[in-house]
């Protein structure tokens, strides 16, 4: 991987929502670099801010402060017209392929719309283009006159991916794209995403709660907890030697087929609200290793092998 300017560069990004009587710090100071051709997984439990972060990058959530640059140009504060080229570069694929395709559009219409809108095809060659796209995602182009309800979940997810690829993006934000699928179909979609990445040099920001999927598809992993990244590592270092106590607990919680009832004690308590994050280290109330410094000071990300961890024990 080259050390040139990262494709996506995010610094101290914050997304706060004002609600009745409180401020929800959904994303609270995130730094990220994503290189061309790289898959960065964003993992964490419900409410950790991973989807909010992805949606903020494509302009679906307002950014409170911080910077986000794609190929060195800012993504923040753009007018609709100025934002359009970025919309093309950055495509979002959603979890539920039942809800994210227009039920009244045929597949041909679904794919023709972005092709024409972004000038990737003209009226005369749009049909050829969309047939190519369907073939690339492993669907028979002859099915293009059909409607979404005539396809299975896995096929619909292929259509969603084809739609995202239509505008030749450089970065795909994949938000739980395989979570609604059966494992046998999930494996097909993961293999498709891998092959598409190799072919087009695409980058993925891959949001998932499934750490098995992460280990299979990601080059690097960012673990989020209450709005912040607590560990950012190369994939194999994270799984072989997790540094942050939260990552350790997360990995230990996953049921695995290779283990016969050797379950460690589960992590106690629940994820605190982003409206009232704990003082100091946000994980300290649930951390078995917490000591007197943890509730008082907020830890930085400290370098560990293959990445960084936000824990005083790694300082």
């Amino acid at each position: 991987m080259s050390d040139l300017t990262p494709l996506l560069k995010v610094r101290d990004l914050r997304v706060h929502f004002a609600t009745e009587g409180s401020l929800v710090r959904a994303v609270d100071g995130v730094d990220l670099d994503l290189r061309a051709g790289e898959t960065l997984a964003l993992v964490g439990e419900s409410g950790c801010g991973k989807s909010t972060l992805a949606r903020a990058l494509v302009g679906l959530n307002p950014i409170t402060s911080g910077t986000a640059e794609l190929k060195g140009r800012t993504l923040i504060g753009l007018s609709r017209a100025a934002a359009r080229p970025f919309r093309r570069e950055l495509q979002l694929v959603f979890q539920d392929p039942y809800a994210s395709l227009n039920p009244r559009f045929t597949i041909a219409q679904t794919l023709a719309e972005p092709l024409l809108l972004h000038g990737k095809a003209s009226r005369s060659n749009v049909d050829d283009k969309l047939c190519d796209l369907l073939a690339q995602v492993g669907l028979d182009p002859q099915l293009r006159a059909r409607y979404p309800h005539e396809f299975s979940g896995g096929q619909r997810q292929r259509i969603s991916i084809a739609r995202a690829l239509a505008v030749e993006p450089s970065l795909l934000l994949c938000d739980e794209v395989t979570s609604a699928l059966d494992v046998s179909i999930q494996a097909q979609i993961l293999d498709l995403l891998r092959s598409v990445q190799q072919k087009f040099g695409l980058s993925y920001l891959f949001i998932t709660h499934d750490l098995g999927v992460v280990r299979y598809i990601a080059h690097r992993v960012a673990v989020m907890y209450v709005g912040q990244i607590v560990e950012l590592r190369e994939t194999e270092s994270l799984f072989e030697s997790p540094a942050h106590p939260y990552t350790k607990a997360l990995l230990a919680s996953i049921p695995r087929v290779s283990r016969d009832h050797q379950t460690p004690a589960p992590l106690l308590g629940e994820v605190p609200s982003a409206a009232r994050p704990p003082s100091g280290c946000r994980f300290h109330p649930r951390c078995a290793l917490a000591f007197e410094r943890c509730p008082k000071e907020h830890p930085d990300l400290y370098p560990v092998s293959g990445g960084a961890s936000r824990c005083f024990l790694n300082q």
Partner: protein
Amino acid sequence: MTHQAEELLRIRNLSVTFATREHSVRAVDNLSFDVRPGEVVGLVGESGCGKSVTSLSILGLHEQPAGRMTGSIRLGERELVGASPSELRAVRGNRVSMIFQDPLTSLNPYLRVEEQLGEVLELHLDLRGAAARARMLEILSQVGIPGEERLRAYPHQLSGGMRQRICIAMALLCNPELLIADEPTTMLDVTIQAQILELLRTLRKQRKMSILFITHDLGVVSEICDRVIVMYAGRIVEQARTAELLHSPLHPYTEALLRSTPRVDVPGGGSLHPIGGLPPRLSAEKLEECAFAARCPRVRQGCRDGEPALESAGGERLRRCIAPVAEMAATRS
């Protein structure tokens, strides 16, 4: 397990057929299995394999008469197929209760926790007032929710894990002999899933309760089930003790499920082998070949000559395959 206890739940030749306008769909096809007292049995398979329809059939919960049931479901001495609504009511909640995937939609959003629990106590046990309240507090502490303040809460004020604990508490109020758990941890985060699985393990031990655990997740199976039944296209394709099934699957479908699941404990997530194609349509007609033949990487000529029978593979193991995985491996070496 060496002792052969009398089974609590005994299902024989259960078929469930849903009639639609054009054709009928046989969601469950000639299913037979048992659950013994105190045993946790996993029912595993992908969407549409019939695992949830099976569990709903036990409680007579799917739409009637659209879903036509034949065969037999016996709970102890009582036959449930064809039972009257009042007979079923005597079983539901009292002897068998159920928890679902989504604890938010299975709780009434308008009622406080105490009202939802109170309704069950009043209806089934005729408990009211202070006695009911004492029972509620007792059951809540058993599911790990201490203190009275949660009784006043509405479901939306509780987290997902907390809501599932409430559903479990509600299911346990009448001390059921059998708990049917339909993907109870699928919507939960892994750390909360671990808590709920730990809770179910503890409750099962304390109460000697049987659990029929429906899931698509073989990792979850390894955490809680004694025995596993794998379903495909409405039929059982394999049954085995949990460790046997996970370490040496006999049916190619079980093997394929294991091989298509990314592994957290193997570098690179292991190598994935997707299962090509899609499951067959579930018609009411007799199959002319093995239901998995079209997708099976080990398919051979004989697989096309009619559906294989579910046969014993020693002890409690059952398999519906003429060329089982482990035996193939043995002949190869």
